[in-house]
């Protein structure tokens, strides 16, 4: 098999995930795009491991071992990421990452956002109380 096929596919998948991370607004959709990027890296690792194991007679299989590690780390990452998203949703009432601007620098258009957030938080507190 031509080695450029999996390499090009993995590059395209990575850039698709890159677009998703940059353009999406919901935090869970951003996590999905991160999964796409991780899978692109996995495809690269597997393809080059198969190539090296037949060409250079590499018996260490570092690419496939690293792929397994990446999959496990991705599973841990998605668990922690969803826990953080749920904690943010419970405190703020939204999972919209454009509205999480508490650490943004300087005054400006953020004030209206923070006011809206404070209003939302007050409403939520009233609702829960």
């Amino acid at each position: 098999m031509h080695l450029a096929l999996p390499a090009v596919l993995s590059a395209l998948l990575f850039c698709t995930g890159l677009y998703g991370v940059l353009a999406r607004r919901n935090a869970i959709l951003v996590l999905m795009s991160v999964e796409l990027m991780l899978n692109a890296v996995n495809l690269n690792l597997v393809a080059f491991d198969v190539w090296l194991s037949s060409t250079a007679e590499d018996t260490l299989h570092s690419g496939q071992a690293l792929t397994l590690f990446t999959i496990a780390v991705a599973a841990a990452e998605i668990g922690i990421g969803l826990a953080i998203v749920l904690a943010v949703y419970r405190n703020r009432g939204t999972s919209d990452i454009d509205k999480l601007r508490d650490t943004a620098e300087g005054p400006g258009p953020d004030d209206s956002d923070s006011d809206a957030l404070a209003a939302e938080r007050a409403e939520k507190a009233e609702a829960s109380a």
Partner: protein
Amino acid sequence: MTLTAAVAAASTTAPSAEGHGFLSPTGVEVAFLLVGLLTFGAALVTVTTRQLVHAALWLVVALGGLAVEYLLLSAEFIAWVQVLIYVGSVVVLLLFGLMLTKAPIGRSPDADSGNRWVALIVAVAAAATLVWVVADAFRATWIDLDGAPAGSTEVTGESLFRNWVLPFEGLSVLLLAALVGAIVLSRKAKEEPSPPPVNSHAGAGSSPSVPDSRNHPIEQEGAL
């Protein structure tokens, strides 16, 4: 005549010298290309659709297509791990996350943020650069899939438990840490201030009386 002879000789010797050619794709290559197109299309729909639950379901198609690609690359153990962990658990976790954050069913107009055109420019530029570099670098490289499979369960298990035992154990520690971290993060912190009124209310009758009877004599003794 010499030119045609040279071209004919080149066209006959070049494939026979390498045994490969662009214009004579093998069945594996054709299957890889078709499944790759399906995977890429599903990934595009995942990042562009406005229906949040559909994005998660198209992600299943993209991840399943990648599992088929692993099978075509003769890495079967990775393929089944991909099906088990990604399609089985990660997507289910994402769907749970969507449900728990009350994601709107149906079209949500604000799924994309305002900087989507900048993101599109960045992604297309990165894709063009990466594809150009990668295709130029591996233009004449072929994977030999005819020998023993490089990723059967036996081969992967041997390499994992002979050469990669220590990282493997470290990974289990990482998973344990992630488990504990997820529990700590998702525990409700607001519950802690509210139980004390209940406890103090229930314990107001009993607990103050017991410490009173025990503490006061000690304090009195200390005072005396």
